[in-house]
């Protein structure tokens, strides 16, 4: 999985952090979505999900949709962190700054 560096689960804090990198175009977004969904499903209890986009350079609309879905399904909360100014603007243009926790 090229575009997900890794997912780390902090059991004590109940946080699943997924680190992404590179171009998250449509095929990469689909693959990432499947991988993250599998990881969430494997958890014993609901976790707060965090996407770290520190190394992402391109975001397709498919990944935006995936973020929206994750935001609405993550029972313990969802946040997007470590955005670059470039990716921050992508989320703002999509209107996500009003509905998701993005930093």
């Amino acid at each position: 999985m090229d575009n997900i560096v890794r997912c780390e689960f902090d059991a004590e804090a109940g946080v699943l952090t997924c680190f992404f990198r590179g171009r998250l175009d449509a095929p990469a977004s689909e693959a990432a979505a499947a991988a993250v969904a599998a990881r969430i499903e494997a958890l014993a209890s609901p976790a707060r999900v965090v996407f770290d986009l520190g190394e992402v350079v391109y975001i397709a609309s498919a990944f935006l949709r995936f973020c929206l879905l994750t935001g609405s399904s993550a029972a313990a909360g969802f946040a997007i962190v470590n955005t670059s100014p470039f990716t921050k603007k992508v989320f703002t243009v999509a209107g996500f700054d009003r509905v998701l926790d993005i930093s």
Partner: protein
Amino acid sequence: MSDAEVMAEELLARASLAAAEFNQLDQAAVDRIVEAVARAALENRITLARLAWEETGKGVWQHKVLKNVVAALLVYRDIRHEKTAGVISEDAETGIIEIAQPLGPILGIIPVTNPTSTVIFKILISLKARNPIIISPHRAAVECCAAAARVCSAAALAAGAPEGCIQWITESSRELTHALMSHPRLALVLATGGPGLVRAAYSSGTPAIGVGSGNVPVFVEKSADIAFAVENIILSKTFDNGTICASEQAVVVEEETAARVRSEFERRGGYFLDPEQTVRVAAAAVRADTGLMNPAIVGQSAARIAEMAGIDVPAGTVLLLAPQEEAGEEYPLSGEILAPLLAFYVRPDFSAALKLCIDLNYRGGVGHTASIYSENESRIREFAELMNAGRIVVNTPSSQGAVGGMFNRLPVSFTLGCGAGGKNITTENITARNLINIKRVCRRRENREWVETPAEKYLNGAVGADEIMGSGNGEGGEADG
């Protein structure tokens, strides 16, 4: 929320995601997408034209093929080198850098008269400017517009365009159109249609470029090459059975050449109606309740219109001409009629003819297009000075001339700005550059006169305007050096 509002929400949600992705594409990526769409549209030009003709029952399918070619090929060639992404200009002297920024989701409202060509055109210019577009077709052209949008969408996606950058409505309704037009996420309404629809676009609260009706006078001034003029007017007015809003609506001639003009029309299949036939045709062509053209005759052939009016015309008639005395509501054929039917006026001299052209221009076509055939440059300039039109086409078929790219160097466009007179912000032929916001990075370049003049001078009531402006041309005094 109503069903229409729910659908508008879904369409705009997808479009917003596409807009976010579009923002990241550079010029090369955008140009690849635009070229792919133009090629696909060109490849499907005949199928789409036939679909439009079969569904709407208006126009001539072969002419619709040509319109599709103009929309795909000429529009593409016109915009392909335009810079619409990133830095588009940089001027070291003024210190200004211009950066293109997309507008966001656009609603493209499509008329029944030119459906597939307008779909292709609006998609190309929107994508070139990195804006997603939602196609909202006239209810009588839903299938052909969907087909055109589908072709363009498939090509765009294959070339790397964001998913959802082209969407289209498959069940057109007034409620949905209004819900889309007034949606807060919509950036612009690009409206082509009747006056009611264009007014609704401007009233929606969303920025709009709306193009409504024209009423094009064509003045065949006495110095004109009359045979050439008539040939071109017929070419223009019969093209796709007169469905282009820039097509001629009234021929104006001076008495001296009236008989020759009339004879040239007759030689080429023009049929002059007698007074009784004129009344019958007017009743068929114009709705008595609104004074506007009857949609049923739009894009019909001259023979079909004659049949609808219950009159006989000779075989081979391609154009009906109705002699008229004046322009105004009491003369229903003096307004816009998108069919091969022309009002015909004779005036004693240039001055009287010009005054009539003004009347016609202001009878529902302000800001649109005016046409003149003349070899007299000063007459052409006088006509141009007095017409309130975004385009004054000279010795050119008006339909094709106003659209641009074929007979002149106007930008190629199926959306013709009509200026303040037509409630538009511009008189330009709308194209990709009208669909970007331009950011200007302004480096410090001091206006020496301003910086070096103490503010006290302006605050001192004893200092008059002459002293401030200087006695010359008002462009500054000593500080200019």
